[in-house]
């Protein structure tokens, strides 16, 4: 186990750890210098001759039929080169396909890019303009006349499931585990995971806690807005530069929407300023292409504004959640029920399925039922967000678990250890665990200096919570070119969000026993390597790293073979140690060998992988807070994470993932929420009023990396990127209870919400409401 309070950078202190030469060190990332000197090219930086600027007109209404769109005034404005609407997109088929980012109905995909018959949320794209300047494009968009027939907005689970609820999607029918309903509905799907005897489990329980919770819509909050540039070649080939987590996912979606073969489109991923799941769906990419077509094949760039990003991309689901857990007198869970109602936004596809897996995953439970409901509402189509769906349900489950421990007078860490899931236990959906580290993360928190130190002071409280994430393997492709000077070019297609170019290059360097600095890693476009899944599911360092490991082994094997030919010895007689190839009296360095073996024929390697055994991740966290009783404001005093990280390839970037997940989780817990007016218009589409935490709102987040190497990866890598956003809301809520005696049943635990809850508790005690005069 390695503990650290520093997010170290550039040190080589861990050199030689576990016999590794490169793995476990903290080298500078290959993109670092360009980023800190402002030379890195992000999507909005793309420039070229004759570039036109696009602007997207968006619906001011949450729910309306589009009667007609008149673009004539916009087209007449000098400088305008093209105006498009959904009528300029090919007719989309009402069928479901998997385009590398989960299954999606193609009609919905197309309608989300440009609305055809209805607008389904405030901010829904209805038309777009290309002009010679961004200002002209914006002014022209204001001249487009859209005739809307307003419909009542359907904003929440309760609105959507009401008997007389207005219907969002006319062809939608409830899919109930394969059985499709007959009626029009806003309930897209229902499922249930069941095992054991739930009724018997609750009947025999010593204590049952049954609570309902509400969480609000939140956004991923990546700092770089979406941007894309489309360029046609004279032969009809198209290039798109865009900020994306998956260039192949963009290619798949754009080609489906525009009905063009994948061979006609090359997607070039630029540097990316954050994604967190929100840069997988396409928004402006297909629009830039059709604007370009209509503008006489001139290149078109669209850069979204911050307000548009918040109103029309992301977010992740708000939810209503019921959790009921029973325990026996010893504190062992006897039965658990979770009902998850997730708002998908305008089109089906909330993360309720993943949420069900997260829900009770940290616990070994024989009698269990988890029901999931995917519900459409007049909010933006939900997108993935770091451990999608997990934070909502963990807030609910970890709150109930904390209340059970409190009522049993048990230490909450001991409760989690007693009930902790381990190898051969089952996830809610029945999946059986291989070796996992949940209990180890709880023990690491229990034994931490943080948890062992007393917390004193009025209105202060400490909370802990656990969380699970499934992780993913996915498909990766990469090539490696041996340069005659002994360096290696590593070409891979996984967008680098969290320092993955470094962590992947380190695995290649380790595999070849060369220095990290000898590997030049770059992220390439969709024409250069074969299919590559998105940077998502905490898969990249694991899966693309595996491909890099394979490349290293292949290159070394071929180098040995060619040297054996030159030296006229058997391939098995060539040894490679400490960076030197030798056989008998022959001996050359790696750099010399790189030249020697390519005298007759160049050398490169390619690798494609699709690993299935990726291994899930667990995290347990401890937070100390202080509440200002007069204002309801929470100050985070101290935060410690213990995560089962497998093997940390680049510890700084693992710590960065841990801290980043918690920073987002704290924002979700205490301030972030979409605020709508009665007509369903989003009121806080700015970073001023959509309150993500700033550096002043967070303490140094301490990390305990529990290194249990994952057996299915040559270096023991386990996905680390997502799980840490799962526990924070529960941990903070549990700390709030310790600080104030109030159990929060909704997120965010904002000053206004907490103040109200404290007043309600006081009123309960005194039958008097202060401030209500």
């Amino acid at each position, binding site marked *: 186990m390695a503990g650290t309070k520093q997010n170290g950078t550039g040190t080589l202190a861990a050199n030689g750890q576990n016999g590794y030469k490169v793995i476990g060190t903290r080298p500078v990332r290959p993109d670092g210098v360009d980023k800190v000197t402002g030379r890195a090219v992000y999507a909005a930086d793309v420039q070229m001759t004759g570039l036109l600027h696009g602007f997207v007109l968006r619906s001011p209404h949450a729910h309306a039929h589009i009667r007609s769109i008149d673009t004539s005034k916009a087209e007449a404005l000098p400088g305008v080169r093209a105006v498009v609407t959904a009528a300029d997109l090919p007719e989309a088929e009402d069928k479901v396909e998997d385009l590398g980012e989960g299954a999606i109905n193609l009609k919905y995909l197309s309608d989300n890019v440009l609305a055809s018959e209805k607008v389904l949320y405030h901010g829904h794209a209805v038309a777009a303009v290309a002009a010679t300047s961004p200002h002209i494009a914006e002014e022209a968009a204001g001249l487009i006349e859209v005739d809307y027939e307003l419909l009542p907005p359907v904003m929440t689970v309760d609105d959507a499931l009401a008997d007389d609820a207005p219907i969002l999607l006319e062809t939608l029918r409830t899919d109930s585990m394969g059985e499709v309903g007959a009626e029009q509905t806003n309930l897209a799907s229902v499922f249930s995971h069941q095992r054991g005897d739930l009724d018997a489990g609750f009947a025999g329980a010593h204590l049952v806690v049954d609570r309902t919770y509400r969480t609000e819509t939140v956004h991923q909050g990546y700092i770089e807005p979406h941007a894309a540039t489309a360029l046609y070649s004279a032969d009809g080939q198209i290039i798109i530069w865009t900020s994306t987590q998956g260039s192949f996912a963009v290619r798949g979606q754009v080609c489906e929407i525009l009905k063009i073969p994948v061979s006609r489109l090359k997607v070039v991923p630029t540097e990316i300023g954050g994604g967190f799941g929100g840069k997988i769906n396409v928004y402006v990419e297909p629009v830039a292409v059709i604007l370009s077509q209509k503008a006489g094949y001139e290149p078109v760039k669209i850069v979204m504004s911050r307000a548009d990003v918040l109103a029309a991309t992301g977010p992740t689901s708000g939810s209503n959640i019921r959790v009921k857990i029973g325990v026996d007198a010893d504190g062992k869970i006897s039965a658990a029920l979770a009902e998850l109602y997730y708002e998908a936004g305008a089109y089906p596809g909330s993360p309720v399925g993943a949420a069900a897996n997260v829900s009770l995953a940290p616990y070994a439970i024989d009698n269990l039922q988890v029901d999931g409901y995917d519900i459409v509402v007049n909010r933006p189509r939900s997108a993935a967000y770091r451990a999608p769906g997990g934070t909502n349900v963990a807030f609910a489950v970890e709150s109930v678990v904390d209340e059970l421990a409190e009522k049993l007078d048990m230490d909450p860490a001991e409760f989690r250890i007693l009930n902790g899931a381990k190898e051969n236990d089952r996830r809610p959906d029945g999946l059986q665990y291989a070796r996992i580290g949940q209990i180890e993360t709880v023990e690491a928190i229990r034994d931490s200096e943080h948890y062992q130190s007393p917390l004193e002071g009025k209105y202060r409280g400490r909370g802990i919570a656990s969380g699970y994430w499934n992780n993913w393997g996915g498909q990766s492709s990469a090539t490696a070119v041996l340069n005659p000077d002994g360096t290696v070019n590593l070409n891979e297609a996984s967008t680098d969000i969290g320092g993955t170019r470094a962590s992947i290059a380190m695995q290649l360097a380790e595999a070849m026993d060369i220095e990290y600095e000898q590997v030049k890693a770059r992220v390439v476009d969709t024409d250069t390597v074969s299919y590559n899944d998105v940077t998502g599911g905490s898969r990249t360092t694991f899966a693309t790293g595996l491909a890099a490991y394979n490349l290293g082994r292949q290159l070394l094997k071929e180098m040995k073979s060619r040297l054996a030919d030159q030296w006229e010895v058997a391939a098995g007689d060539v040894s490679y140690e400490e960076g030197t190839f030798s056989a008998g009296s022959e001996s050359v360095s790696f750099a010399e060998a790189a030249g020697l073996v390519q005298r007759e024929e160049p050398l490169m390697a390619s690798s494609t992988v699709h690993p299935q055994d990726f291994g899930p991740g667990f995290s347990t966290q401890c937070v100390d807070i202080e509440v200002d009783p007069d204002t309801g404001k929470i100050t985070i005093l101290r935060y410690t994470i213990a995560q089962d990280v497998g093997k940390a390839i680049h510890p700084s970037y693992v710590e960065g993932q841990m801290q980043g997940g918690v920073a987002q989780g704290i924002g979700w817990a205490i301030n972030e929420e979409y605020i709508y007016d009665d007509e369903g218009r989003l*009121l806080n589409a700015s970073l001023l009023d959509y309150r993500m935490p700033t550096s002043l709102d967070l303490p140094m987040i301490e990390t305990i990396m529990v290194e249990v190497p994952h057996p299915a990866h040559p270096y023991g890598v386990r996905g680390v990127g997502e799980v840490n956003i799962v526990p924070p809301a529960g941990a903070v809520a549990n700390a709030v209870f310790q600080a104030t005696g109030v159990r929060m049943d909704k997120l965010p635990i904002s000053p206004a919400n907490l103040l109200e809850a404290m*007043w309600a508790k006081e009123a309960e005690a005194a039958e008097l409401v202060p401030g209500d005069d």
Partner: protein
Amino acid sequence: MQAFDFVAPTSVDEAVSALAAGGGRARPLSGGTDLIAQLQEGRLALDTVVDVKRIPELMAISISDDGLTLGASVACQSINANQAIRDAYPALIDSTHLIGGTQIQGRASIGGNLCNSSPAADSIPNLIAHSVTCHIAGPNGRRSVAAEDFCTGPGRNVLANGEFLVAIEFPAPPANFGAAYLRFIPRNEMDIAVVGAGASVVLSDDKSTIQSARVALGAVAPTPLFVQEAGDSLAGQPVSEETLAKAADLAREAAKPISDMRGTIPQRKHLSAVLTQRALRIAIDRARGTKTVDELGRLNGHG
């Protein structure tokens, strides 16, 4: 953002002419931290922008035994960096440190904050507590209004066509004077006040009695709100938590907030009392010479 004409006069008269000629479609520009954002977001459409920063009077700082006169375009950073102002008007720094981050403070001015006339402006309750006078130039010459009379509604003020703010004048602080501005925000930075409270006191020579006091609130009414009765209730009273609590109750009663995405009515009324009492405590401590600006900075979330 639509195109507009830009003029940069060097005298008050030229600026008055340019503004009068533009009618309602011309506005003065100081730091531009509100104006440019409003133009970019389409919340404001102008034909002419009149940059007043080349007018010497607008950029002047004059401090003497008679008081402090701040040109309307003086940037917050120029105030923060002025030791004489920090010594004489430490509470003014409460606001100039809160308006935007460091880069914004290099552009944003107190005059601009006043003329933007947001009900939640972080300087205005403080200016009211300091009994500031606003000096205005216009086609009919010069006139002056008290800070509490400057704003007339959200984003609206007493400036008529062709008029603009030239300077704001702080009286010399009397002996045993102390003031403070506090706001409540959900985060620790980058936020708009849910409620703001400015307070000032003048203590007796033995510093046990409040001779006079002024209280003003932000974000609880269509304009920054001068709560005269709260200050009056303290006049002649001993310094005690009971008297402060009474003034705080009056502030709560005076507050007429709305519920919006930044706060609810009960929350804002409650915070009006909490912040009034806290601001008064700090003002008293300052009058007694027992608290520094830096300590206050921590209270306001600038740790």
